[in-house]
């Protein structure tokens, strides 16, 4: 049985925002990436699944139950980390977490201390006094406190330093091993690459791709930028897989897809001033990887 089942889910706000005809499924035990640029509709989808907003048409099912009709029932087994965490000020971290725990019929005290220790979160501080990253940690603990079967994360890493991010990812992997399904929304592809089994890519409210991570990786583009003394003729890189060639002010740039060794051999022959090899950002992936669909 799929854990999440979206069926032609649509939410319109009159304007351009919203989501249209989203259909995909997340299977049990998966870590599922949900990728798209800002404003693509990731949060709208998640908030619809959680019953914060109501769908215009279509349906969303979690654990096989409709999100609108069985909201409270479903939410008992969901842990949710919102993209922007704001918590009632004037409360200590511990009080907020206890308040959060009081909604679930479970004793979460031990787990709370464990998680706080792992993330180096001071339970006795006032939430007001916390930095963005520390507030995020409160959100993480709050979301994982009751050992949910489905963990929904909406851009969870913003504000976390790399070390914490690693620990957080480790934590997620552990939860996943214990059987939790994870929906991980992000606008950074590389962030989900490590964790996710499958990704859905959404743009302007529409699902444009649903891929296994392994497939996507095989076809990822690399963005090359070379600084050279003299102009490079395009012919130098006349190999398969090079696109978007541009030569400007002594800087050549292109996207490459294929065997990285081939291109490196060519580059080794050149007299370079500088070299950058980067992951293309999402927009570039949309433009090239999905050009065939346009």
């Amino acid at each position: 049985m799929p854990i999440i089942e979206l069926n032609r889910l649509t939410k319109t706000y009159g304007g351009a925002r919203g989501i249209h005809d989203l259909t995909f499924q997340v299977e049990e035990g998966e870590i599922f990436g949900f990728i798209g640029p800002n404003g693509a509709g990731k949060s709208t989808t998640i908030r619809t699944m959680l019953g914060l907003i109501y769908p215009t048409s279509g349906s969303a099912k979690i654990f096989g139950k409709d999100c609108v009709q069985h909201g409270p029932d479903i939410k008992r087994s969901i842990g949710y980390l919102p993209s922007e965490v704001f918590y009632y000020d004037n409360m200590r971290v511990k009080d907020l977490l206890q308040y959060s725990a009081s909604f679930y019929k479970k004793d979460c005290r031990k787990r709370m201390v464990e998680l706080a220790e792992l993330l180096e979160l001071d339970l006795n501080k006032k939430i007001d006094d916390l930095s963005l990253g520390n507030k995020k940690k409160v959100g993480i603990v709050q979301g994982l406190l009751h050992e949910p079967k489905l963990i929904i994360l909406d851009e969870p890493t913003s504000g976390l330093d790399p070390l914490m991010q690693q620990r957080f990812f480790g934590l997620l992997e552990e939860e996943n091993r214990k059987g939790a399904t994870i929906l991980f929304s992000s606008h950074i592809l590389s962030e989900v690459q490590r964790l996710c089994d499958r990704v859905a890519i959404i743009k302007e409210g529409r699902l444009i791709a649903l891929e296994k991570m392994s497939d996507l990786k095989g076809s990822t583009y690399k963005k090359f930028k070379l600084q050279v003394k003299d102009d490079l003729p395009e012919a130098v890189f006349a190999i398969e897989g090079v696109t978007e060639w541009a030569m400007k002010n002594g800087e050549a740039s292109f996207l490459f897809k294929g065997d990285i060794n081939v291109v490196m051999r060519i580059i080794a022959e050149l007299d370079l001033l500088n070299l950058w090899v980067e992951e293309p950002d999402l927009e570039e992936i949309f433009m090239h990887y999905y050009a065939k669909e346009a």
Partner: protein
Amino acid sequence: MNMYLYELRAYRNVTIIWIASIVGFVLLMMSMYPTFASDAEAFMELFASMPDSVVQAMGIGIDSIASLLGYYSYIFLYVLLCGAIQAMHLGGSILSKETREKTADFLLAKPVTRVAIMTSKLLAALTLLLATNAIYFAAASLIAAMVAQEPYDYGAFALISFSLLLLQLIFLAMGIAAALLLPRMKTVLPVTLGTVFAFFVLTFIGSSTGDGLLRYATPFHYYDRAYMIQHGGYETGFVTASIVIIVACTLFGYRRYQKRDVHAV
């Protein structure tokens, strides 16, 4: 239950401040009563020299102002004003808190129905208002007993004091309706003050023109204190009007709270 207790705790301090201010105001005004009563003649002459409409607009009953109940009735109008602000502000802020403080993603992602959330909030607000009234009534009775020059009708005194709660319920319901009519409300105070003072001004106009139907638009005048002193009860028509307003606003609140989309920041 956890939400109810949480809301109670969240609004406890502000409620204590309101109680202290209202009781303080009554204490201050009532402590002047003995002086006022002993110089009643002079005051009566002063009021008599003022135009009738002004005296009526200020809610002064010339015949009764020298008596404890008459004097209390007069200052009670300002108790009502404070009480109305307290109640509407409470109703408005308790229900709009999630959207104002952007904590909707916290509360609404919990395994509770929206009806349960709203009911907990309403019960908490109701409890706070009941506590306000209980403490107010005890304090006012004590103050009245201290400053009374001669025996007074305690029943009428109780009726008058109790009408604070009735009026507060109306404004609590209006606060709830306002919070849901204006979902993007960032601060509750301007809306509250605007509404309460608008009704308060209407009261002045209403009482100086003495228009029968206009009274239905002035909640401050629903519970006429001169009527309570004379008849020992409330006017059925206005009690009904109160109930209609409270029920209508609350039902509207529930419907809206359940149906609405809670938008992200």
